């Protein structure tokens, strides 16, 4: 058994790509080894800013031997055919073949024994293939070479059981050498085994394990914040990114000018995190941001960090000075007077400017206000100002603060809190975990914005395809679903879509109809995903959506829930079986007679007690179902349906559908059809599995 160590050493790899690249290296090499019959005991990959690598254990020294059988011509086949076969199998004469026999007689079989190759040779073949075929999100050439890598690739370390596996990729010869930290350990390191490798890297100031780097950063950061009696603001994404920017992390703490604390804290945190990759700190007593920050260096400075800290403090103070300048300047101009400038921002080519979009949202949001219970005035105000912060200096500088700044500026102007909240929250919810707005004005604007976006892109035929969803339309649809369901809004979605659709520039009635239809089925799909995540069965959602005019999401969900509960009962299960049986029989007989049995069954043709009972039960159930559905009592409708179970069961037990008398037979088939019709008033049972 042998261990494989592979390291690809390059110039700085973007932080966001490192982990995926190491994983890809692992899976590509492991797969090719497996294909070559080389099994691996354990695999481990690693990445730092300058290297991705792989450590595999328990490789056999050789590939297993394999014997391959090749079927040849029949015994007694023409000479030429046999000669050709022998040549292709690499055999001298027929005696080297075995003969086998089947129904048609005897035939030749060549058994070719293949000796397993040395694992090292297999690796020497595989690794260059993996490197050449590697997929980076963006790759490049350098110097005079033709190899593509994320940044120039400098060396390849590849050893099996401590010995170099020799190969060459575009001029780079594999070896057992690598380099340590760019500044602390630039010298060559010889490391033929994984143990030596990690040990020598650590001596050369490289922490190979990402988790270890993260721990060091977090522990040091916590240490600093605790010693300052502050609380570190947890930010896992930032921690992950920073761990990809350093090989030898060291956290330090800096201070910024207290005067900047008057700027909204989202701005301070964003300026620290997005531009500078700094962690923010809070005062646990007040819960407010402190004028301190933690930053992570890739160095153990000789002066203990005073120069680095001073430098970072200067940079952050300059950044925050900019931010404060924007904050002060932006508040001098009212949001209302900014609206005009939205004409300069294109929303999307064929969908006009952001100004146009805001104009479209107005009537839509006001209409929705009637359902959400929002007051019209704040709704109008919120929708008009919803996008105005896009033309502030702050949002230009920090796009991720859109909405948040709008709210601050609105409140600074003295506008109503509900208006400010709606400006901030109309982008929400962004995804399944995001907070969903619950105040009426916010809901109205948030819904209007998303519905406009969806039907707009649908009308110009820019729908999501496969994994491509550049305008995040799936997220928008999920947003609509969550807004409606979580706030229990009774809305006919199609009406709202059509209304919104007619506002889109160059909207054509025929195209809009088709687009709205298609969008509704997109909603059905998204709803399925949403409900499935909550544990509902997708076939039940289909069964409800198949009913005519299903666009009231709250009703749909209530129906799905009632249906699910019903099908979990014995009555439900048996009735579903009875339904399927009825449908099967009908399908066969309708095909045979080339007709459909949708006439009303006649009492006078009923001779058996069971069929009379069923007919009565159906009539009664229909009445009860209609009454229940009218008041949206879906549980009641299911209960009414449940009463059909016993009569349906006895009908199938006691009555022979295919009677000799053709009228009786037709009458019974008509009765079966009634079962179908009656159940399908509640849900399309044909879509239900099981």
């Amino acid at each position, binding site marked *: 058994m042998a261990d494989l160590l592979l390291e690809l050493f390059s*110039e*700085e790899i*973007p*932080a*966001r790509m490192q982990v995926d690249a190491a994983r890809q290296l692992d899976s590509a090499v492991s797969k090719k080894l497996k294909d070559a019959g080389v099994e691996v005991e354990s695999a481990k990959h690693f990445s730092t*800013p300058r290297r991705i690598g792989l450590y595999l254990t328990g490789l056999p020294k050789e590939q297993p031997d394999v014997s391959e059988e090749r079927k040849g011509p029949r015994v007694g086949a023409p000479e030429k055919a046999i000669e050709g076969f022998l040549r292709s199998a690499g055999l001298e004469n027929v005696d080297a073949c075995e003969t086998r026999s089947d129904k048609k007689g005897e035939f030749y079989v060549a058994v070719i024994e293949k000796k397993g190759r040395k694992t090292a040779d297999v690796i020497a073949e595989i690794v260059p293939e993996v490197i050449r075929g590697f997929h980076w999100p*963006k*790759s*490049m*050439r*350098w*110097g*005079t*070479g033709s190899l593509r890598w*994320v*940044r*120039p690739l*400098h060396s390849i370390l590849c050893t099996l059981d401590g010995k170099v596996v020799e190969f060459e990729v575009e001029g780079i010869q594999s070896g057992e050498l690598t380099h340590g930290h760019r*500044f602390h350990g630039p010298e060559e390191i010889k490391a033929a085994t994984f143990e030596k490798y990690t040990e020598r890297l650590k001596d050369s100031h490289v922490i190979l394990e990402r988790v270890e780097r993260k721990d060091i950063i977090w522990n040091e950061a916590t240490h600093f914040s605790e010693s300052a009696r502050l609380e570190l603001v947890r930010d896992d994404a930032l921690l992950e990114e920073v761990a990809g*920017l350093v090989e030898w992390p060291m956290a330090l703490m800096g201070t910024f000018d207290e005067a900047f604390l008057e700027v909204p804290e989202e701005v301070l945190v964003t300026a620290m995190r997005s531009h*500078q990759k*700094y962690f923010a700190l809070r005062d646990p007593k007040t819960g407010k941001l402190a004028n301190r920050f933690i*930053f992570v*260096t*890739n*160095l153990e*400075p*000789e*002066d203990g960090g005073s*120069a*680095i800290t*001073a*430098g*970072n403090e*200067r*940079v*952050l*103070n*300059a950044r925050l000075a*900019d931010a404060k300048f924007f904050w002060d300047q932006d508040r001098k101009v009212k949001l209302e007077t900014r609206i005009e400038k939205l004409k*300069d*921002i*294109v929303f999307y080519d064929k969908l006009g*400017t952001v100004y146009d979009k805001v104009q479209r949202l107005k009537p839509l949001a006001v209409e929705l206000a009637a359902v959400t219970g929002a007051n019209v005035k704040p709704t109008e105000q919120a929708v008009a100002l919803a996008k105005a912060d896009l033309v502030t200096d702050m949002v230009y500088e920090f796009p991720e603060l859109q909405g948040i700044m709008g709210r601050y500026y609105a409140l600074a102007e003295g506008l109503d809190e509900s208006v400010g909240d709606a400006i901030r929250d109309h982008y929400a919810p962004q995804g399944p975990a995001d907070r969903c707005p619950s105040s009426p004005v916010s809901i109205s604007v948030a819904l209007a914005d998303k519905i406009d976006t969806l039907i707009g892109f649908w009308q110009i035929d820019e729908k999501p395809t496969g994994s491509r969803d550049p305008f995040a339309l799936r997220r928008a649809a999920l947003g609509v679903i969550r807004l409606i369901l979580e706030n229990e809004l009774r809305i006919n979605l199609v009406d709202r879509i059509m209304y919104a659709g007619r506002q889109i520039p160059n909207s054509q009635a025929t195209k809009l109809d088709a687009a709205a239809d298609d969008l509704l089925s997109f909603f059905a799909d998204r709803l399925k995903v949403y409900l499935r995540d909550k544990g509902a069965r997708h076939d039940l959602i289909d069964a409800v959506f198949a009913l005519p005019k299903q666009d009231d999401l709250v009703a749909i969900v209530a129906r799905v829930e009632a249906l699910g509960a019903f099908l979990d009962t014995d009555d439900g299960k048996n009735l579903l079986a009875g339904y399927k049986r009825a449908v099967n029989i009908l399908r066969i007989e309708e095909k045979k007679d080339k007709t459909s049995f949708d006439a009303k069954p006649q009492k006078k043709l009923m001779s058996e007690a069971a069929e009379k009972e069923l007919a009565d039960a159906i009539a009664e159930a229909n009445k009860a179902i209609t009454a229940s559905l009218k008041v949206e009592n879906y549980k009641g409708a299911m209960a009414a349906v449940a009463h059909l179970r016993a009569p349906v069961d006895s009908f199938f037990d006691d009555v022979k559908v295919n009677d000799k008398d053709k009228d009786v037979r037709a009458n019974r088939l008509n009765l079966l059809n009634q079962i179908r019709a009656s159940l399908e008033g509640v849900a399309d049972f044909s879509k239900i599995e099981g």
Partner: protein
Amino acid sequence: MTDAPDRSFQGLILTLQQYWAAQGCVILQPYDMEMGAGTFHPATTLRALGPKPWNAAFVQPSRRPTDGRYGENPNRFQHYYQFQVILKPSPENIQQLYLDSLAALGIDWRNHDIRFVEDDWESPTLGAWGLGWEVWCDGMEVSQFTYFQQVGGFDVELVSGELTYGLERLAMYVQGTDNGFDLEFGGKKPDGKPFTYGDVFHQSEVEFSAYNFEHADTDTLFQHFKDHEAECAKLLEAKLPLPAYDQCIKASHCFNLLDARGVISVTERQAYIGRVRELSKGCCAAWLDSPQGRSDKQEDA
């Protein structure tokens, strides 16, 4: 060179010139035209194409009319200096060469945190892109580092490494000042103190901001744009890529001024960028067919 490098603005330039001259670069003087970035210099754009090696370094004044702040913002100027280095093909040790240049400027890695942070570069007007980093020193971006992949829409044959030092930023860092106008530029005034960056450029920032935003005549500029565009096409027909490229640079600057005057709408903006790109593509194509742009062997064959 003395142990303590001259930290004045001009000292910085002199140090960089000397350093890169020693690395085998041609030290060029600024191109005598208004341009938005050093990359527009024909010594970068055109020389990056074709099979011939090329090493050059130069200061290029960069004009970005929209960045004018009438001399009131200490960090933002409509005219500033870039120091450009282009090494073609990019040598194996280019990162080390760059780090050594910082050391020559007095930035010691033992006490400063120098980092290569992902930053890909793209110029829609030049039809060019590359991959690389912005280089951070203690959290501040001090340089841009790019491996050119495409220029003028053409895949490069040899990959150039391009280094761009933002000289004002770097000087502010080295001198420890937060106000660009307070930078020590160099020379000596009668009182024995050095001239400041403000002494040299403040009035020019004020006046050019007024020109860029208020006085530049837009009708004239629109006309100039068309004229340069037409002239460029004519020169390309005459197979004169260098004069044609001058017209492209001029058209690009006209566009930048019009942009600052706020007379180009969002949709028009894309169209104008596309028109400049067409010019630069044409120039690059013609360059590839010129003596310095093609291989010598091709001529023999």
